[in-house]
């Protein structure tokens, strides 16, 4: 099992519903977020092109954050989801420094926090909160090993990219372009 997500940059309007849904679902402390919106505008006026992305932890296959963790708090859970065991984390911030996507932060309680792909929902057969609320239905989630999962299907029909592939992290969040 390999959980992954695909996000359609052509459909995303940057409404931030996914951000709020995650904060509510996961009780993210006020002022913090586990997913966020990035708008990049490329080109020179008047030929400009804007891409809107909903970003989060990429649950990388080759995660530097898991590798550098001195206690084993950061680990691979089922389906390759990268999680932090709170009462093993000493809050050394090594994993925060190691993530090229700045996807982690220190929770006010001291441990490191980040996106969990809503494993608690996925275990019950539900979609992650962000995927389920998206008004444009631009996110796809599922198991890459299952050819019939929404994410596998959309990746066979659309062009996609991952962020900073040169960092060697092998991300599992795909952006449809």
């Amino acid at each position: 099992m390999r959980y992954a997500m695909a996000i359609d940059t052509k459909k995303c309007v940057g409404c931030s519903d996914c951000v709020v849904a995650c904060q509510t679902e996961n009780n993210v402390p006020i002022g913090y977020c586990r997913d966020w919106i990035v708008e990049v505008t490329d080109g020179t006026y008047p030929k400009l092109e804007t891409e809107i992305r909903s970003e989060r932890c990429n649950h990388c296959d080759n995660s530097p954050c898991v590798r550098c963790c001195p206690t084993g708090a950061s680990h691979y859970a089922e389906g390759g989801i990268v999680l932090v065991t709170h009462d093993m984390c000493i809050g050394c911030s090594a994993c925060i420094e190691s993530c090229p996507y700045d996807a982690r932060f220190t929770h006010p309680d001291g441990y490191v926090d980040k996106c969990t792909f809503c494993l608690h929902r996925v275990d019950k057969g539900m979609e992650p909160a962000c995927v389920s609320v998206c008004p444009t239905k631009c996110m796809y989630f599922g198991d890459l090993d299952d050819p019939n999962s929404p994410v596998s299907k959309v990746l066979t029909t659309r062009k996609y990219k991952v962020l900073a592939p040169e960092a060697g992290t092998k991300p599992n969040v795909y952006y449809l372009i």
Partner: protein
Amino acid sequence: MREELIISGRMNHLIDPVLHAWGWEIPVYLFLGGLAAGLLFFAGLYYLLGKENEFPAAVKKAPVLVPIILSLGLFALFLDLHHKLYFWRLYTTIRIESPMSWGAWTLMAITPLSMVWAALNIKEWFPNWDWKYQWIRDIETFVAGYKKHMAWLMVILGVILGIYTGILLSAFNARPLWNTSILGPLFLASGLSAGSALIMLISKDHHERITFARIDLIVIVVELFFIIHMLMGFQASTEVQIEASKLFLGGDLTAPFWIFVVVLGLLVPAGLEIMELLKIKIPVIVPVVLILLGSFMLRWLMTYGGQMSRYLY
């Protein structure tokens, strides 16, 4: 051309707008670790070379300070932890791929070793020192028999600790300014330089001072070579590293880097040491303070600069 990049909805504390997860604690820890590594290395080395009496400050006096330096460094590291009550988790596992884990275990080995060495030499600072209990004296006589083994360990662990202070940063591929393997040798050299400077300050013996001034001069030249090598390596690397090196080559940290690290931390003390060798009297405190300051500034600026450098996507 990239016109604009907007990240909305994310203002995570210590992450945005610029990553600042590591503050002053980590550079202090790296500096003190490097200094302790330098002192242990020279103490072990000159003991093994049988120069205990020729270089008493290096072999016997300076190492007494090491446990204090290490404790301060560990305290700085402890302050950096956000989930302090769980710090013991560091010692319930050994994680080969994690430099932090390596460092924690190296320090676990080196701290008691340095304490024993310090206890054996404490009379250098307090000539009237006498252990209160006979059993401590018995232990002292017993460990004194293993001084040679200890010296070997000090040399080896000193080098590991010195290199580790650089590897802790260089292992992070995500921060292009850190991601150069020259950082290990560079920080080791900087630690050796800091160590020899402190020995010069403590030593009362002219011959010993001159010897360590010579050693320090050589280390400074090596350090300068590593710094040039590092900057050239960045220039010949990928876009993110070229961008990162601009921090020191025209960007935000250019002035502090060249003024504090290169000129005041390396070139001026080297000049003063050459004058000393030419028998021109220089108050020893001046080059020593400059070297220690430069060594600290190198770690400070690397820690800060690294967090300002990032992947572009």
